[in-house]
């Protein structure tokens, strides 16, 4: 199995530990993972701002870097959803469509492709799980509270394999944190208020850590926690699933 590691730009620049944990987690499961060094960004920040027509450069780069792999795995539901929904190429549309079918968010790759049933991780802490919207409602990593359908959750399924980990219940299990890409600065007041409310739900239920399958939500919530001088920390789910 030939797996390409897609590391979103802001994880590359600000959260290398989440990327290293993803790499180690996959390697630990016996997967050969390659990181194409010329990757930059999926183009989502521009597309979500209404500038999808400026993303062809990003699309072309993505295709050059990733077309060769059997699977493409990324520790970000949001960036994966963008590729799945919007990767196009006027010159190599077949390659673009191929990529859209073989790109996976990390927890869905572990659950659906590798069918992981056991992990050797240990993390003896109280953890709140933030269901990032694009992963949850876009990639359907977990059942959505709005729908009348059977419950399931790929991230929770994996976290339950971690020794010592205690999950905390939330009042609103899948409310958005308010990051929303450029929304976080364009609509600063609402974005911050949403973030404060989301963080409070975790803190009030005794979480020591907040985790998610998307680092961007965590970056936003971390910014708020640190401004509040809180002891509560954020960790990408890959860091918990590979914790020793």
């Amino acid at each position, binding site marked *: 199995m030939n797996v390409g590691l897609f590391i979103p730009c802001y994880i590359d620049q600000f959260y290398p530990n989440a990327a290293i944990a993803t790499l180690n987690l996959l390697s630990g499961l016996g997967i050969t993972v390659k990181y194409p060094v010329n990757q930059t960004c999926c183009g989502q920040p521009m597309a979500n*701002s209404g500038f999808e027509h400026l993303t062809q*450069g990003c699309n072309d780069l993505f295709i050059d870097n990733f077309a060769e792999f059997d699977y493409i795995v990324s520790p970000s539901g949001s960036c994966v959803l963008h590729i799945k929904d919007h990767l196009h190429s006027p010159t190599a549309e077949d390659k673009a469509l191929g990529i859209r079918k073989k790109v996976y968010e990390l927890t869905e790759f572990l659950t659906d492709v590798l069918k992981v049933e056991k992990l050797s991780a240990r993390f003896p802490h109280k953890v709140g799980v933030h269901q990032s919207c694009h992963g949850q409602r876009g990639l359907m990593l977990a059942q959505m509270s709005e729908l009348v*359908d059977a419950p399931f959750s790929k991230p929770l399924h994996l976290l339950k394999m971690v020794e010592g980990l205690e999950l905390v219940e939330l009042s609103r299990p899948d409310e958005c944190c308010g990051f929303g890409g450029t929304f976080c600065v364009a609509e600063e007041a609402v974005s911050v208020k949403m973030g404060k409310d989301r963080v409070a739900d975790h803190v009030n239920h005794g979480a020591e850590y907040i985790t998610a399958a998307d680092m961007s939500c965590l970056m936003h919530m971390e910014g708020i926690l640190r401004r509040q001088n809180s002891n509560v920390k954020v960790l990408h789910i890959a860091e918990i699933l590979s914790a020793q």
Partner: protein
Amino acid sequence: MSSGTKDHAALSDIFNKDEERVDWHDETLWFVRAKRDKAAHNIPEWEALRESASLIKNNVLSNLHNYLIEFEEQAQKNGVTVHWAVDAAEHNQIVHAILKEHGVNRLIKSKSMLTEECHLNEYLKQNDIEVVDTDLGERIVQLAQEPPSHIVLPCIHKKKEEIGELFHEHLGTPEGMSDPVFLTAAAREHLRETFLTRKAAITGVNFAVAETGEFVVCTNEGNADMGAHLADVHIACMGIEKIIPKRKNLGVFLRLLTRSATGQPITTYSSHFKKPRPGQQMHLVLVDNGRTTQLSRPDFRNSLKCIRCAACMNTCPVYRRSGGHSYHTAVAGPIGSILAPNLDMKEYSDLPFASTLCGSCSNVCPVKINIHEQLYKWRQVIVKEGYADPTKKLAMKAMEFTLSSPFVYKNAGKVGRWFMKHAPFTVNNKLNLWYQHREMPAVPKESFGEWYKKNKKND
């Protein structure tokens, strides 16, 4: 509603100055969302119902012309006078002409977001005709001289103490009295006289049945019925998308509408109006006002499936924390944000951006409108049509330049992180909107790309 020059972000910023009020507003609407969830989960076939409703509405939109003709024919057979209005102005003129013909200068109105969309109240006021809104919530915002902030719960932004003050001023209730039961009784008593003395009544329409020419109005207070039954002239105003093919389709829509809206199984009254009683006149105004334009936009046409339940507002984390008035349009929230740009792209160019694209709106929508996907698509249209903020345009161009080249990206990343580490004041300042209420991420000593190069040389 005119907001001056303020956009959604600026109006939300003002709304958020009072955090306690934001919390109250959020909790109040979340309570309604929770009631909706409970009601939906009591129906095992809920998702199948939504799918049925969606398919029926798709059929209506694909055959709208035929259904409208059929509906008009049947309604005329029933003795209803049918009018067609191409836009808000014509709608208002038609209503005015009917009132003039009957020498009416005072009337009552119930359940009509369409007349809000057409600004009928203002128009009639300018023509010296007095309109009294009879639904409690609408009456409250009318007394406060404000537009509704929500299409189902028009005064949800007002606390009961504020309503007590308004009633004290306008209806003479005791000062400081804010008991909802008392205030409702006071409003009812006050309105009773109005009902008995007005000769004309305007109502909205929830569903118009093509097969029979009848229309259905769903209310909890029964005001639409009382108004229409006591008046000599009943004028019903509807958008042309309110058509459903058959009476039996109501079995799908009535089950969905109120459960989605407030979590009730059904409204107290689902009133069917078919023909005028002897001596009464019944008029029906069918309004386009941009709907056929929206129908011609492939990406946005299915927004016309909307049955105005407001579930998307109640669930929207942005709406709950910005209030309906921040949308500066008659229909607020996610659905308003995909409808309004069709009416005036420049005026409402901010609304499709007033969302995190979380997708909760599309999941609660009883007719399965892909609201969040349409928000994304409107953003592309608005930018292409030239309504994007010029500073944003520059930033996006810079981003394109940086992210299209691995070489530029790596160096920009290095420089950015160097500045954040060695000159944090360049980013940690008031001009950086992120930093006003959030810390910047801590700066790692190297990027993942740099780490990989050092540690995984075998690649």
